């Protein structure tokens, strides 16, 4: 059964009762596992792999949007088997898995997502993350840094606190995901984007606190856009870009109307802002929800 169980509800030819309101649609989520086929050396070894040589984990961010690392293991066995790799992280950091266990054909590498959380009060510095198999151990240092110390590439919203008008809870749609640095729509509903909870009710808002007064002249918005869930059906269509400073009123600095693309850039005259927010007014297709992957401010 599709998660969008709307179908069953329409099948309600009732006697003397009004038609049912269709359930809101939310697209099913994608998964994080990926495999990379290859040729086994036949040695029986199980080799840990990681998507990066080190992991930057910002301090003080929303626990719903922890630092993410792709971890994996590759089999040099002769036969397919269920393989296990242990995941160890230095306290007080915590990891979303203590082990990775998966079916693994020979020569294949299987990769999955590892979330590393930095509890409040953690000291800055480098912590150990170790991926252990019977054959070898891969060490991936985790650098815990304050958000002010991040290389944000000019994106003033990166890893800053986010608040939203609501959050859908049938899967993982945390507001902080719009400022987690991940512009990709892949893995929708797995924590990479925000979906509000109020179907066909507008406006919806999502706001980013920039951590102080900043000069802003451009906002980029990334809405859900994959092959299966194209922006022209599932993406955001109309929105206002607003800013405020000094606790004052929100001021509209740009408007987007009729968007059907996965990303839209708004340029405006430079303003001083402490907060930036998106006021969502309509979406495409079913016109049901706001689905935002990323908001960047420059």
């Amino acid at each position, binding site marked *: *059964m599709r998660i969008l169980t709307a179908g069953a509800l329409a099948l309600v030819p009732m006697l003397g009762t009004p038609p049912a309101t269709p359930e809101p649609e939310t697209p099913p989520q994608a*998964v994080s596992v990926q495999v990379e086929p290859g040729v086994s050396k036949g040695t029986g070894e199980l080799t840990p792999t990681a998507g990066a040589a080190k992991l930057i984990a910002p301090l003080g961010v929303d626990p719903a949007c922890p630092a993410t690392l792709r971890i994996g293991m590759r089999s040099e066995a002769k036969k397919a088997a269920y393989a296990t790799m242990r995941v160890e992280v230095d306290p007080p950091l915590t990891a979303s898995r203590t082990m990775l266990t*998966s*079916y693994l054909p020979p020569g294949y590498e299987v990769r999955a997502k590892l979330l590393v959380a930095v509890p409040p009060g953690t000291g800055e510095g480098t912590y150990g993350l170790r991926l252990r198999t019977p054959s070898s151990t891969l060490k991936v240092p985790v650098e815990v840094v304050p958000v002010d110390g991040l290389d944000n590439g000019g994106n003033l919203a990166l890893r800053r606190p986010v608040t939203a008008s609501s959050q859908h*809870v*049938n899967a993982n749609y945390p507001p902080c995901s719009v400022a987690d640095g991940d512009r990709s729509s*892949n893995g929708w509903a797995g924590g990479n984007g925000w979906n509000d909870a109020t179907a066909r009710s507008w406006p919806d808002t999502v706001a980013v606190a920039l951590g102080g007064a900043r000069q802003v002249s451009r906002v980029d918005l990334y809405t859900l856009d994959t092959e299966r869930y194209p922006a022209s059906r599932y993406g955001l269509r109309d929105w206002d870009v607003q800013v405020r400073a000094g606790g004052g009123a929100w001021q509209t600095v740009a408007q987007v109307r009729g968007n059907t693309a996965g990303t839209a850039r708004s340029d405006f005259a430079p303003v001083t802002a402490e907060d930036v927010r998106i006021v969502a007014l309509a979406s495409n297709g079913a016109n049901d929800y706001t689905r935002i992957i990323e908001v960047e401010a420059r």
Partner: protein
Amino acid sequence: MPHPSRRGFLGLGGAAFALAFTSDLADPWTAPATARTADYPFKLGVASGDPLPDRVVLWTRLAPEPLEPLGGLPYNKIKVDWEVAEDEAFARRVRHGSAWATPEYGHSVHVDAKGLRPGREYFYRFRTGSELSPVGRTRTAPAPRSSPESLRLAFASCASWQDGYYTAYRHLADENPDVVFHLGDYIYEFGIVPTGGNRNTPVPEQFRVQCDTLDRFRVQYGLYKSDPDLQAAHHRAPWIVTWDDHEVLDNWAGRYGPGGEVSEQDYLVIRANAFRAFWENMPVRLPSAEGPDARIYRRFTFGDLAEFNVLDTRQYRDDQVCGDGQQVDCADRLDPARQMIGAAQERWLLDGLGASRARWNVLAQQVAMMQLDYDPGPAQRLSMDLWDGYKAAKDRLLGGIAEREVGNPVVLTGDIHYNLAGDLRRDFDDPAAPAVGVEFVCTSVSSGGNGNPTQGVPPGGTDPANPHLRFSSYQRGYVSCEVTRGQWRSDFKVVPYVDRPGAPVSTRASLVTLDGAPGLHVL
């Protein structure tokens, strides 16, 4: 929980049961009469399943920490003793033995307890170290050549944990059925937010991500099987289970995964992990899953009264056509080459139905077989995921049933989160076509949340777009059946809410079909 009448039996922990001695003095099971310890290994309860006349599968999985991938246990094998008795005090022990719980299989135990007598109630439990498991009740199938007068069964499906409480499972347990059929979506692969959805019960952060690896599937089962209502339902009766889509991935079809960014190779690895976790957590008499292929379709015979064909409508089907979902005028759904259960399973099914000597011939399966037109107007809008999307396969099956003059075909279905009861016809577009059998579709246990009692076709009502439909309701619950030699009666049991525990149960509709006269009658 508001069910004091049943607590006398189920409320006792393992330690209390230790006071009840076995008659085998060589091995009396005793344990310190203390409360459950923090590292109590039987927190996932016990289960039994796949009953035959002389045997039943006994199951448990050791997990002092059910939300840890290896249950909080070291990567060692652990010895587990088991015993079966005729009485719940274990005074009349009839079988016992030992098995290993190994880390490769998530410390699960599957014991095929043989040498039992047919059509009998038994009680069973496990022991490891000084810890005793809860006691389960089970029942063997009647003798092969017997002529049972009646059979009481229940069936259920679709129990998304974060959508609500399993009150329906608790009421199902209270009925003490002879056997329970679970038609899939026992778990959902989706991630769960830390606030726990409709249950408002906190879950650890690692539940956020969707099930994909075996470690992740294991903790999902650990969470589901920690539920006391689900455990109660397992503790009261043997289950016969199959899977639907959410044991793996939403709407998977054969070798086709969800598409998009998940490649076929990715999907088959996920499927292998899902199948393994299913095997580890279910009381099935099946070879352990060792990869992305696993046969689970199988047959159970209850004397000459009923034969159950448990199907797998996911693993061997062709991909959904016309982009899946609901479609009007999708010609591809008629393609005679397309398979729903695959050629081998279809042959096995029709051969078995043709050879059956049972009065009631049952298909326990996943997706709706009766035609379901979702458009109230003249257009015909059909779901491509249901048998309607595999029209030729459906016609072959219903035609094959008619040609073989199969006695009293009854189809039991889940998946759709909606109670439905209807006649099965060889031509659903011809209201005058005679019924060849009947279909009962059970709603969800929890998936979809509270439901709505005003939605649906009341018993005895009609639906112009679906004239073969006799009843429908969008409520949560399960179906309870009493099968006798003269009639099959299905009671649709519903609960008014699942967003908090303790909902009462009521019967929304009762329908019967009579021996030798296919078609439904509303009571």
